[in-house]
C-alpha cells in the first residue's frame, strides 16, 4: 500500500513537474499593430445624395460629371461636400439657361436641362469641374471651421492644370462667425450631414469654381483701367509676361498666390489724381484755375501713369507703394471681415512692417453683408466696398483662382 502511495505521489510530482516545465517562456517577438479605423461600406456620400429627394438636381449634375465612382462612392476615401439643394440648383439653372427655364418650371425641366446632351447645355467636363470644386478631400465638420481671420485654404479635388503640377488644386475657404457659416461667401443652409465616407453641407447657392486669375479680371475690367495702369507702372511701366516672378502683375496672375484685392474704380482714381496733380501744379506756380483744368486733362485717362511728364511724381516706387496697399496677403470675402473695424496688414507691410495696414469692417443683416468698408490710414473716411457678389460680373467677393477682388470707391492712402 505504501509503495502504491509512493508511486502515486511520485507520479503526481512528475506530472506537476511536466506541467511546470511545459509552461512556456513568454517570448514576444511580434509587434502589435495599431488600430486603424475601418471603412464601413454603408451609406456613402454618393448613396446619401441619391436617396435625398431635395438633392435630386445636384445628383443629376453628379451623374453628368461621371466622377462619383472614383471619389464619393469609394468607401475608403474621405470627403466633405458642399451641395446646393434643389432650390439653389434651380437658381443656377435659371441663370445658366439665360432664363429659358423659369424658376417655377417643373423639376423635370431642370433635370432635363442638366442631363441633356443634345443640346449639351452643361458638358460633362463642366459638371465635373463644378462637382470637383464642391468636394474637399477630408472630413471637415463645421466644428472645425476657422472662426477667425485670416482664412485657411481648403484645397478641393479640382486640379485646374494637371499638366502644371499633380498637386495643384483650386481652393475653398470655410469660415464660421456668429452670423453664419460659409464656404467662400456662400452661406450654409444646413451642415454636418454624415455619410460613412464624409460630410455633406448644404449651401444656399451653388459654389462655382473660379476660372480667371485676379489679373485676368483686372486686365479686362473697363472700370479698373487706372488700377491696371498703376500696377504696370509699379512694375516699371512695362507689361511683363504673365506670372513673372517678382512683379505685381506676376503675383496677381500666379495660380499659387492667395490675395485680396481692393480695386478702386476709375472715377476714384481720377478724382484723387486730379486733386494731387492740381496741388502739385499750384505749388509750381500755376494759377489754381488753370491748374485744375490741366490736372483734370492729365488725369482724364489711365494714360496718366505712362505720361513721361509725370514720371518724376508717379515713380514706380510711389505707385507701387499705393498699389500694394490695396492687396492683402490672404483671401478675405466680405463675410470674413470683422463686425467692428479692425486693422489688418497689407502687402505694404512686407516693406514697412510697422505700418498699421487697413481698417476693415462688414455690417451684417442676418447672414448677409449689407455694408462693408475699408479704410486707408491717411483717408479721411472709409471707402465702401461696392456690394454685388454676382460671380464673374459683380463688384464684390469676386472669387478668382488666386484671390478675391472687391471694388471700392476710394483710393486707399497709406500715409
Amino acid at each position, binding site marked *: 500500500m505504501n509503495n502504491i502511495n509512493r508511486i502515486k505521489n511520485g507520479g503526481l510530482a512528475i506530472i506537476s513537474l511536466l506541467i511546470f516545465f511545459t509552461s512556456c517562456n513568454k517570448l514576444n517577438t511580434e509587434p502589435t499593430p495599431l488600430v486603424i479605423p475601418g471603412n464601413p461600406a454603408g451609406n456613402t456620400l454618393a448613396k446619401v445624395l441619391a436617396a435625398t429627394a431635395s438633392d435630386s438636381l445636384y445628383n443629376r449634375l453628379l451623374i453628368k460629371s461621371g466622377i462619383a465612382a472614383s471619389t464619393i462612392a469609394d468607401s475608403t476615401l474621405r470627403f466633405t461636400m458642399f451641395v446646393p439643394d434643389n432650390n439653389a440648383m434651380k437658381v443656377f439653372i435659371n441663370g445658366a439657361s439665360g432664363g429659358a427655364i423659369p424658376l417655377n418650371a417643373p423639376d423635370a425641366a431642370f433635370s432635363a436641362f442638366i442631363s441633356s446632351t443634345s443640346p449639351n447645355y452643361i458638358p460633362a467636363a463642366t459638371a465635373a469641374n463644378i462637382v470637383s470644386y464642391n468636394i474637399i478631400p477630408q472630413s471637415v465638420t463645421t466644428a472645425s471651421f476657422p472662426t477667425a481671420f485670416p482664412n485657411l485654404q481648403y484645397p478641393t479635388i479640382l486640379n485646374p492644370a494637371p499638366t502644371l503640377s499633380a498637386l495643384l*488644386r483650386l481652393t475653398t475657404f470655410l469660415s464660421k462667425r456668429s452670423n453664419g457659416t460659409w464656404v467662400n461667401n456662400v452661406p450654409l443652409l444646413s451642415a454636418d450631414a454624415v455619410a460613412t465616407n464624409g460630410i455633406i453641407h448644404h449651401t444656399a447657392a451653388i459654389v462655382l469654381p473660379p476660372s480667371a486669375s485676379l489679373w485676368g479680371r483686372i486686365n479686362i475690367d473697363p472700370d479698373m483701367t487706372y488700377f491696371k495702369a498703376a500696377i504696370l507702372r509699379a512694375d516699371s511701366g512695362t507689361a511683363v509676361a504673365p506670372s513673372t516672378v517678382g512683379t505685381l502683375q506676376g503675383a496677381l496672375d500666379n495660380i499659387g498666390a492667395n490675395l485680396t484685392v481692393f480695386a478702386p474704380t476709375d472715377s476714384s482714381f481720377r478724382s484723387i489724381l486730379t486733386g494731387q496733380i492740381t496741388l502739385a501744379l499750384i505749388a509750381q506756380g500755376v494759377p489754381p484755375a488753370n491748374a485744375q483744368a490741366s490736372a483734370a486733362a492729365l488725369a482724364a485717362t489711365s494714360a496718366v501713369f505712362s505720361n513721361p511728364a509725370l514720371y518724376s511724381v508717379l515713380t514706380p516706387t510711389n505707385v507701387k507703394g499705393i498699389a500694394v496697399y490695396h492687396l492683402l496677403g490672404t483671401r478675405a470675402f466680405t463675410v470674413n471681415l470683422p463686425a467692428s473695424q479692425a486693422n489688418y496688414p497689407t502687402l505694404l507691410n512686407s516693406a514697412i512692417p510697422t505700418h498699421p495696414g487697413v481698417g476693415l469692417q462688414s455690417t451684417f443683416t442676418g447672414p448677409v453683408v449689407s455694408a462693408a468698408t475699408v479704410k486707408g490710414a491717411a483717408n479721411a473716411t472709409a471707402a465702401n466696398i461696392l456690394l454685388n457678389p454676382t460671380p464673374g460680373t459683380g463688384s464684390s467677393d469676386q472669387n478668382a483662382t488666386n484671390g478675391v477682388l472687391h471694388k471700392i470707391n476710394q483710393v486707399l492712402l497709406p500715409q
Partner: protein
Amino acid sequence: MKKSTRYPASLLIAAMLTLAAAAQTTTITGNIKNSGTRDAVPAVSVTVKGSSSGTFTNEKGDFRLITASPLPLTLIISSIGFETKEVPVSSASTPVQVDFVPASSLGTEVVVSASRVPQRILESPVSIERISAANIRNAPAASYYDVLANLKGVDITTSSLTFKTPSTRGFNGSGSTRVNQLVDGMDNQAPGLNFSVGGVVGLTELDVDNIELLPGASSALYGPGGMNGTILISSKNPFKYQGLSFQIKEGIMNTDSRFRSLSPYHNWSVRWAEKVSDKFAFKIGMEMVAAKDWLGYDKRNYSRTGTNGKIIVGDRETDPNYDGINTYGDETTIDIRSNVFPGIAGAAPFLKGFLDTLNGGRPMNVSRTGYKESDVVNQNTLNYKLSGALHYKLSPKTEAILAGHWGTGNTVYTGSERYSLKNLKIGQYKFEINNPNWLLRAYTTQEDAGESYNATVTTRLLNEAWKPSGGSNGWFAQYSQAYVGARLTGASDFNAQTIARATADDIVNKSTTGRPDPGTTRFNTYLNQVRGVPISKGGGLFLDKTNLYMVEGQANLSPVTKNVADIIVGANYKRYLLNSEGTLFADSTGKIGINEFGAYIQATRALFNDVVKLQLSGRYDKNQNFKGRFTPRATMVIKVAENNNLRFSYQSAYRFPSTQQQWINLNIGSNTRLIGGNKNFIDYYKLKTTPSYELSITTPTTVNTTAYTFPDSKPESVTTYEIGYKGLLGKNLLIDVYGYYGEYKDFLYRTLVIQPTGGNLNALVAGLASGVPASNFGNIFSVPANTTSKVKTYGFGLSIDYRLPLGFIISGNLSSDDLKDSGGFRAAFSTPKYRTNISFANNGFGTGKRLGFNLTYRWQDGFYYDGDFGNGDVPAVQTLDAQVSYKIPKSKCAVKVGGNNILNQYYINAIGNSMVGGLYYVAFSYNVF
C-alpha cells in the same frame, strides 16, 4: 631550412630532449587504476614524499618518475576526486600498481584565484565558484561557457551562439566591461572593442582545466575592471594532461523552424599534448564551431529618443514611423511636417493651409523602410580556435611557458548597435616563467576586427546608397509628395501613408530601380558596397587593430616573512595601442597609446591556531589619463568547525573608463556622435566655446538651459561588504551561502548634449516643446559622464549539493540581486531579481559505472532590461538541459547525447539579442579527461 636557423634549432631540441643529468638517480614506473571501475586514471600527481620530484600519469595511467631520492621512498598519489594515497616503494625494478579509491566527500577542490595561492575551496575568504574539467565533461551544455550559467549568482547575456557574456551581481549586458576574464593570466578583453572574446578566441573546450569565478568586486587582486566579477580560466598543463584527445559534437538547432529552418551544429575539438621529457612538454589544440546562428528577430516597435527608448505598439503596416528592434535602416526618421511640407507649401502655397491642418498640426514622423536582421547580418557562425604552448622546466619547480591562442570567425555582438563580427581575428601570445614563489609574465593581445560592420549603420547607409533620404527628389520628398497627393484625392491618413511608402520605395520597380528585395544581386551589391567602406568614410565597416601589451610579475615573500605573515607582492604595466584608422576612435592621425601601471600587496596571517585567518590586500593603479586609484580588500575566515567556515570580506573594485569611453569618435546617425571623455574632444568640437546643453532622457525631451560643464570623467568604483558560510555537513551535504551589500560610486554612463545651430537655444527649447526632435536643432554628442549619486545593490545566494547513494548528486541554488537605490539615475541594472538552478546528476553508475546523466533546470525572473541597444521587459526564462553519456573504458571513448533548452522554448536575455532555442547534439569523445 636555412643553415643559419638549423644550428640553434637543433641545439634547442637537444636541450629539450636531454634528461636531467644526475649522478645517482632512481627511475620508478607504475600504473594507477580506479579501484572501482579498473579504468586507468590519467593526470594523477605522483610525487616523492619529502622531495620536489614529481610527475603525472599519462592517458594510460602510466607514470615514470626519475628521482634522486634513495630507496626506499614513499610516493604520494593525489588527484581531485580521489582519496590521496601514500605508497611505499622499496624496489625500482617492479612497476608500482596503485588502486586509487574515488573520494566520496564534497568540497575537496582547491582554488587559486581567491587569494592568488592554492587553498581549499572550503577555506576561501570570499565567495568563489569553481568548474572543473569533470564538470564540463558531464555538463549538458554544448559549450563550456554555458556551464557558467548554472553557477549561483551568474547571468549570461547571449548576443549570439558564440557570443555570451557572464556577469554577476547586476548590470548585465552584452560584452560587459565590468567583468574581467583572464585566460591563463591573460586579460581576454578585445582591447579596442571592449568585450571579452572567450567564446570566440579563448581556450578550446578540451584544454580547459578549470574555471574559477569570483562574483562581485575583485579589483584588489586582479586589477581594474572586475566590478561585477572576475572569471579565471586555466588550461591543462601538458606535463599533466597528455596524449591525443578529440571530441566530435554534431547537433541540430532551429528544430521547429520558427525563426529559420532546421540547421546542423558542428563542434569539433582536438588536443594533443606530449611530455617529451621531464623538462619539456607541449600541446596544441584546435576547435571548430560551425552553425546557423540564433537570430535577432524582435520585430516589436521601438521608440527612441537619443539613447533612451521604449517598446511601443505599431508595426510596419500601421505605424509610419515604425522602428523594429531587430530591423535596421528604419532608424532613419524625420518629421515630414516640419521638414518636407514647408518645401511643398513653398512650391504650392495654396496647399499651405491644408498641410498645416494635417495630423492636427502635430509632428508626422516617418521612418524609412528597414530590413530584417537576417537580411543584413551574416548569420553563419563560424569559429576556429587554435592554441598551443611549449612548457620547459628550468628546474623541477620552475616552468617557462610560451603560449599562443588565436581565433577567428563570425559572430554577432550587441553594443549600442548590433554588430556583425565578420572574420574577426584575435591572437594572444604569452611568455611566462612561474615558480611556486614567483611569476613573470608578458603577453600581448592582437586584435583585428576583420570585415566587421555595424548592422544598423550599414543598413541605413544601404538605404541611402539606393535612394538618398534628403534632397528635393529624395526618399522623404517622394514620400511626402505621394502622401499629400493621396490625401488630396480623399485618402485617409493610413491609406495615404501606405501609398506614400509604396511610391517612395518604388515597389513596382523593385527588380530594376526600386527598393531592392533582400538577397537579390542588387541588394547584395549595395550591402557589400556599404559594409566594405570604413565608417569614417561613410560606410559601415569598422577597422580596429587595437593591441594590448602587458608585463606583470608577482613574488611570494612568505618563505622569508612567514613568521609575521604570508606576503605576496606584484606589479604590472599595461599599454593599449588604439588603432582604428579613424573609424572607431579619434585616431585618424595616428595610433593612440594609453598606459596603465599597477602594483599590489597582500598579507595573510593565521591566528588562534589557524581558527582565524586574516588577509589584507591593497592595490594601486594609475592610468595616464586618470588619477591613481587605491583599492583595499580585507577578509577574515573563521573556522567554526572542521570543514565549516564563516567568511567576512570588505572588497572594492573600480574600472577606468574603457578605451571606447576615452577615445571613441563615432557618428551614429540622427545628427548624433558618440565621443570619448578625453579632454581633446571638447576643444576639437568647441563644445565649451560654443556652449552645449544637456538633453533630458525623459519623454518629451527637454533641455537644461545652463551650459554643460563637461566635468572630468573618473573611474567608477564599487565597495562591497559580504558575509558568507561554506560548510560540509557530514560527508554528503555541502552548503554555501552569502549575502552582500554593494555601493557604486561615480557610475559611468552616457549623456546627450546638444550644440544648438547658431547658438540658438530658444529655437531648441521651443522646438522640443512642440515635439520636434532635438536633432533638428543642432549637433548632438553622446558624452561619458559620472553620476554624482550612489547606486546601492544587495543580494544573496544559497547553494546546496547533496550526495545520494550510488553517486547520485542533487544540487540546487538560489540567488538574488536587487537595486536598492538607483540614486535617481538610470542605472541599467538589467538583472533578474531571482534565479535558480536545480540539477540532478550521476557521473558513473550501472555496470562498470559507465552510464552518466545530468539534468539541469534553470529559471530566472523577468526583469527590465536597460541597455544601449534597447530597453524593455525581458520575460522570465526557464531552460531545461540534459545529457546522458556512456563510457567505453577500454577504448577510452565516450558517447554523450545531450541538449540545451531541450523544451525548445525560445528566450532572450536582453532586448535586441538573439532568440535562443533548443540545441541537441551527440558527442563522441576519445580520451577526454
